[in-house]
């Protein structure tokens, strides 16, 4: 059996009349962290949304553990074991931390089983367990959004810009948490903060204008300043 968990093959995605993804391909290996890099508007978020079924591609294929998933609705893809952490701290603001986490249960007892692990990653959530999600700080909301994806037994996590707008000290906590999570699951990470992505990822794909233009080992990319300057604008 192949160790490729997710395989995206030449997908073309449109949003309205705009052709956003023009043949994106990538592979995510089981147990790895793969970073999806690129400038603003390169198509990173649309790639995650296409995988999740929120912006289904018009052509190309997406396979999860060999099973085609493109064309399936988002809730079915989630039930196959794909956790999605959208950008902008996508929590349910009116519900408490506990209710947010409980909503992510797919089987009764999921939260009880993984609660200790989640609270060890994000101790703040324990403190505000019965507070409405909307009252948490930006960093805590991001932690809650990530924690929610950990409640169910997900095979793959799609995480979009976890460091967006957060203070460096919070970013460090999230990096530490993601590193621990990588031991348990597979992660496809979209991240603008190259320094953060470089600390975490085993492999990378670079998107530019809706196309995947380069991929390889992250350890090699950190020394490739020409590529970083050309596609990421970060030194």
């Amino acid at each position: 059996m192949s160790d490729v968990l997710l395989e995206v093959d030449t997908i073309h995605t449109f949003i309205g009349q705009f052709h956003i993804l023009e043949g994106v391909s990538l592979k995510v290996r089981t147990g790895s962290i793969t970073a999806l890099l690129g400038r603003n508007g390169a198509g990173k978020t649309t790639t995650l949304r296409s995988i999740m079924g929120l912006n289904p591609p018009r052509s190309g294929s997406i396979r999860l553990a060999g099973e085609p998933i493109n064309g399936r609705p988002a809730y079915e893809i989630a039930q196959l074991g794909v956790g999605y952490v959208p950008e902008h701290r996508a929590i349910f603001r009116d519900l408490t931390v506990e209710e947010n986490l409980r909503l992510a249960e797919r089987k009764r007892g999921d939260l009880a089983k993984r609660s200790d692990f989640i609270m060890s990653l994000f101790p703040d959530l324990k403190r505000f367990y019965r507070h409405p999600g909307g009252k948490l700080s930006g960093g805590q909301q991001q932690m809650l959004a990530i924690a929610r994806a950990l409640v169910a037994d997900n095979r793959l996590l799609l995480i979009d810009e976890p460091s967006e707008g957060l203070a460096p000290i919070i970013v460090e906590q999230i990096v530490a948490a993601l590193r621990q999570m990588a031991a348990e699951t597979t992660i496809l990470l979209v991240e603008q903060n190259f320094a953060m992505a470089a600390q975490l990822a085993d492999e990378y794909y670079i998107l530019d204008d809706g196309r995947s233009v380069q991929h390889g080992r992250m350890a090699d990319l950190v020394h490739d300043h020409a590529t970083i300057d050309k596609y990421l604008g970060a030194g």
Partner: protein
Amino acid sequence: MRDRFTSSQWAGLTLIGGLIIFPFVVSLFTGQPVESGVPKFWQGMLIQVFILAVFAMSYDILMGYTGILSFGHALFFGTGAYTIGILLKHAGWDLGSALLAVIVIAIIQSLIVGLLSLRVSGVYFAMVTLAFAQMFFLLAEATDFRQWTGAEDGLQSIPVPAWISPTTERLRFYYVTLAFAIIMYLLARQVVNSPTGRVMMAIRDNETRAKVLGYHTLTFKLIAITVSGVMAALAGAFNALWNLNANPAVLGVGTTINALLMTIIGGVGSLIGPMLGAGVIQLLGYWLNVFFGPSWPLLFGIVYILIVLFLPYGIVGTWRLRSAGWLAMWRERSRSLIRFFNHP
């Protein structure tokens, strides 16, 4: 948290106790028998509040808890009224069977309306539900079915069983509708506090986020519209029993707007708020009518604007938001007072 829960439970029990003895208190103060005169009049007033409270609460499940705005909620209320009226008057059914039929028909109707309209959302859904309600309104008015519905005159003289007659057994009818409102409230509370209720609230917050957690949101929206539809239909049935008739107005836009007003005035997403809103609308309407005559709707409009301006989250919503602040302020003032008396 535990204390607050206990105190709100206690407040609820006090309110129920107050409503149970209310007819006798009015009788005591007026010196009139409990089954006639002013006590009987006020029982009638509260009966209408109880029925409207259930209707408003059903709207709150849809709008307040699931975030679905409907302009056609009168459809369920009116269908409930006509169903019980036709079954009692023309089919000769007994009351229990007729009420059961109201529930079954409401379930079928909610599922059909939901499946056909919940694929669109927001204002589009609202317009589709409005179209459904108008369709039934026209059906109720149609002369082709006059022998069943009474067409524009409505279905008159519904034969309500003597033991529950709102004219001769008003006090009994009062307690039956009070029990009906309490049972509906407890059921609604059970629904919104259940895991299904949490998903409904998640859909209200952001439907896409609920989908990516693995929820087939259409199923949960169908559950919400069915629970809401059944409650509204039962309220409509009791309304027909109370008025002894069902006329096309119960299916009109005005009935839906009434539910919307009660929910907004009382407080969206609180269950108890819309019940309170029903009381405010019914009693305020009565008093404004007594003091200002036919121009009362104009004054009510002004009162409504003032409520929206000064209580933007409705009565219960604003109370909940401010009570924490007020509580802290009173605690601080009590402490200052104690400090002053200890060390003047």
